[in-house]
């Protein structure tokens, strides 16, 4: 450490930067232990992890930057990492390199060096390098880069104190003689532009050489910065444009490619001078595994097996765990219910209704937690092991044609490609997709997959209207959604998502390395915790809106009077029945009856959360102790007079429950949502929907329990018009009846319609935007309606049967998908970036 007259800094801000899979998060954990905090970077949904530690009287705040390949404007993570560097001006950048893939890592290092920040290098994964026979001359590397280089093995905490020492030394070093990338023929122009920038107010505020390089490269973010700082048409921007135009005119080469080549050659030279490989000719572990995993014929099977395991563990086993998890959520609900005003006879106080609605909405989402913990653990294992990059590699060519990414595979599988899935974990799993446009396209199309809740509805309609073609109909629905998702992704990425940042697929396959338990577990917990926090805030906003739409204006006065009359009748019956009981005197007024009803209701609710004999007996003891004067009416035992009350109570409770259900159905029908459903009838008739179906569709989205009403509505069709079931089923174009063509239109609509409120809430969580959440509701609804209308109206006009129209629609969808896929592969591919996956040579 060099001597200094300045006081040593005792508070440091450190940015941890590096490529994905270099072990950056593991290094972060090594430096900071468990003392960490997670937020979002401003304005984006990228996680910002901050940790603290104290070492030799220095307090160090460490920020884990997103893993990136470079600092261009290609992806959200890259811009976030670079914006942090520019705005926060950290004291030290710790660049984590993967010593077993040094050249690939150095590509990023050279860009960070160019930004003039004090840098220390953590040469990580030295154990993997050693095992592969790769030897890095640390001292020589340090000399060539001009910075401290500390060998580390993050997983085992090796190099921890040395790295901390290097951080302090780097922060206090007065002069930094770091390696500079030379841009060969362009070097004079870079120097000239740097000088030009030096005359502006950007001097001292930005690293000017880096800015000059970026402007000449045509980097959009750099251009934006210059516009903001110096205005439109500044001298610097003009000069940069001239330099680029002239170079490309003289050399017939894109400037960005040329500069990339300069860095590449420099990285190659450094590796050649600092790295030696032993055991030449012998496959490394990674190569051995890849010979199988990436084998042209074996790759698909290995991929399918991996995805199948994830599906089985996360979805199938996760659901098993919800059986044990749910009782805790139910206890929370009971606790909150006790805090709210007591239930009324037929209607609850508004505060209670709203409160319980919100709790139910939140619980519905929180019930997924066991699934998420498992899912995120498995994803973290894939990421840390290096196989995730290979999944992207295998599938990217196919998906790229439709604007998707290789890593879109997992979200689709979880959403339900073939077997029933669930869009909520599917959307959640898009977090790892590095390309923002692809990620958005995936988020917006995962809901089209066949979630578990959709399948029984399809089954019902198929069994009623397509019995003879059952297999074909199920095949249609199972696979139609895949083609629909690909087509819609293509549509979205060509239109509303067109301006989003996209990135060329970089063919870099990291070495395999074992995930750490701490790293995997921590990430799973972090992501699940993020989910829980966001559910808490979003559910409040959405539940209030939906609740209002469903509750108001409420029941018409005459309807309410009718229900009250029936309830009064039930009360009279109750009073009559208990008259002979010696306890009759206790229930002379309505309020005491309401109290009894509510107690009975609470008891049954608590019973729903437990299992087994011991738990039941314990619950009984609890109620006996808390309500000694009322318990005998819940459990009369040998008390005959109590038994009379109990029997009457059960009947009364049943009546109340039925009336409440009927009231709810009428309330929804008369609600604002119901009014919208009716007013849409002139439009929806083209899809064969009447107002009843409209209301059922809208309410089944907002309140899933109303999905029963959807089926009830469909059953009512024939009954209302006095048509026998036989006549209806036998007729393919019955006038006024519900025909197979109707059924097909409804199924297509439901295939494209948002599966549930939870999914749209999850889309909000992932996009950080209510705008996209709204889009994810309106666009699929409009598209579903359009498709249903084409099918129903077109089919009717052409006098086609349901099964015929199904075949035509399916054929059209499949052919269009194939045509679009092939079309893109015919287009000339842009020049690929240099391949860094080759082995380092001596």
């Amino acid at each position, binding site marked *: 450490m060099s001597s200094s007259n300045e006081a040593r800094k005792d508070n440091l801000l450190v940015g941890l930067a590096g490529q994905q899979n270099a072990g950056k998060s593991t290094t972060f954990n090594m430096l900071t232990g468990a003392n960490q905090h997670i937020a979002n970077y401003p304005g984006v949904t990228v996680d910002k992890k901050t940790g603290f530690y104290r070492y030799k009287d220095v307090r160090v705040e460490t920020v884990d930057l997103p893993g990136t390949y470079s600092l261009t404007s290609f992806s959200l993570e890259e811009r976030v990492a670079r914006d942090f560097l520019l705005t926060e001006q950290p004291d030290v950048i710790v660049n984590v390199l993967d010593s077993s893939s040094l050249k690939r890592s150095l590509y990023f290092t050279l860009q960070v060096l160019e930004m003039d920040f004090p840098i220390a290098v953590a040469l990580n994964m030295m154990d993997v390098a050693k095992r592969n026979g790769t030897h890095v001359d640390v001292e020589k590397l340090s000399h060539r880069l001009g910075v401290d280089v500390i060998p580390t093995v993050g997983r085992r905490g090796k190099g921890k104190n040395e790295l901390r020492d290097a951080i302090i030394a780097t922060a206090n070093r007065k002069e930094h003689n770091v390696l500079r990338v030379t841009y060969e023929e362009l070097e004079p122009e870079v120097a000239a532009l740097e000088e030009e920038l030096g005359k502006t107010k950007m001097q001292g505020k930005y690293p000017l050489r880096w800015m000059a390089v970026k402007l000449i490269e045509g980097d959009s973010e750099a251009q934006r910065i210059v516009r903001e700082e110096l205005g439109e048409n500044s001298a610097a921007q003009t000069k940069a444009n001239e330099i680029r135009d002239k170079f490309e005119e003289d050399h017939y080469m894109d400037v960005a490619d040329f500069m990339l080549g300069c860095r590449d050659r420099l990285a190659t030279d450094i590796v050649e001078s600092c790295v030696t490989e032993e055991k030449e000719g012998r496959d490394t572990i990674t190569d051995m595994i890849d010979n199988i995993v990436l084998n042209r014929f074996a790759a698909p099977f290995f991929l399918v097996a991996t995805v199948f395991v994830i599906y089985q563990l996360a979805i*199938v086993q996760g659901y098993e765990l*919800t059986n044990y998890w749910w009782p805790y959520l139910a206890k929370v609900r009971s606790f909150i219910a006790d805090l709210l005003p007591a239930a009324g006879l037929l209607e609850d106080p508004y505060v209670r209704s709203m409160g319980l609605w919100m709790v139910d909405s939140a619980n519905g989402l929180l019930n997924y937690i066991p699934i998420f913990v498992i899912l995120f653990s498995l994803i973290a294992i894939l990421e840390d092991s290096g196989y995730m990059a290979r999944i992207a590699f295998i599938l990217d060519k196919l998906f790229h044609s439709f604007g998707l990414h290789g890593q879109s595979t997992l979200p689709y599988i979880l959403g339900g490609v073939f077997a029933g899935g669930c869009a909520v974990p599917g959307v959640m799993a898009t977090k790892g997709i590095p390309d923002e446009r692809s990620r958005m396209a995936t988020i917006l199309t995962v809901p089209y997959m066949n979630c578990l809740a959709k399948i029984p509805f399809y089954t019902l309609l198929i069994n009623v209207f397509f019995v003879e073609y059952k297999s074909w109909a199920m095949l249609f629905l199972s696979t139609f959604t895949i083609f629909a998702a690909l087509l819609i992704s293509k549509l979205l990425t060509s239109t509303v998502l067109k301006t989003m940042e996209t990135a060329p697929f970089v063919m870099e396959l990291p070495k395999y390395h074992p995930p750490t338990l701490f790293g995997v577990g921590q990430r799973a917990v972090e992501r699940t915790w993020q989910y829980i926090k966001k559910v808490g805030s979003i559910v409040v906003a959405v539940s209030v809106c939906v609740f209002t739409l469903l509750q108001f204006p409420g029941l018409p006065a005459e309807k309410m009077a009718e229900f009250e009359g029936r309830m009064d009748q039930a009360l009279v019956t109750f009073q009559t029945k208990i008259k002979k009981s010696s306890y009759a005197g206790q229930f002379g007024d309505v309020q005491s009856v309401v109290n009894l009803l509510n107690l009975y209701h609470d008891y049954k609710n608590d019973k729903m959360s437990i299992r087994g004999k011991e738990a039941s007996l314990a619950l009984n003891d609890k109620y006996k102790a808390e309500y000694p004067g009322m318990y005998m009416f819940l459990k009369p035992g040998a008390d005959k007079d109590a038994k009379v009350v109990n029997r009457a109570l059960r009947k009364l409770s049943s009546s109340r429950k039925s009336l409440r259900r009927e009231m709810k159905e009428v309330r929804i029908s008369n609600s604002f949502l119901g009014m919208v459903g009716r007013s849409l009838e002139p439009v929806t008739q083209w899809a064969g929907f009447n107002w009843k179906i409209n209301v059922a569709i809208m309410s089944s989205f907002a309140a899933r329990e109303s999905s029963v009403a959807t089926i009830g509505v469909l059953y009512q069709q024939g009954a209302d018009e006095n048509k026998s079931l036989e006549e209806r089923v036998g007729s393919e174009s019955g006038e006024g009846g519900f025909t197979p063509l109707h059924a097909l239109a409804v199924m297509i609509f439901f295939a494209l319609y948002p599966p549930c409120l939870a999914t749209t809430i999850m889309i909000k969580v992932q996009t950080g935007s209510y705008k996209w959440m709204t889009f994810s509701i309106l666009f699929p609804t409009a598209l579903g309606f359009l498709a249903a209308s084409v099918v129903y109206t077109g089919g009717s006009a052409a006098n086609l049967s349901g099964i015929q129209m199904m075949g035509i629609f399916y054929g059209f969808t499949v052919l269009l998908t194939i045509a679009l896929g092939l079309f893109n592969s015919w287009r000339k591919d842009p020049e690929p970036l240099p391949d860094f996956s080759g082995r380092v040579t001596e």
Partner: protein
Amino acid sequence: MKKITVVLALAALLAFAGQAFAHTPLVSCFDNGDNTITCEGGFSDGSSAAGVKMYVKDGNGKTILKGAMSEDSEYEFNKPAGAYMVIFDAGEGHQIEVNGADIVE
């Protein structure tokens, strides 16, 4: 006519039961003390269990009763003599079994 009704009923049952997959199925049973048992069902997100298939089997595993949850998600039956098991069939791989011995008075 009868055949179609059966198909519709089975389809409806299957459809209702399938609703369970998207959330956790719930059921509890009470001995009413008058030789009847009432079972109440539901799902974790508040969805109705109406239509979910219900079976009661005797000690030998033979099905002695078949039915479905009512519109109010309840199913009542006479208590069988001897050992019995109540099955709430919310779809393949997602049944809940309640042992008669666990249904306490």
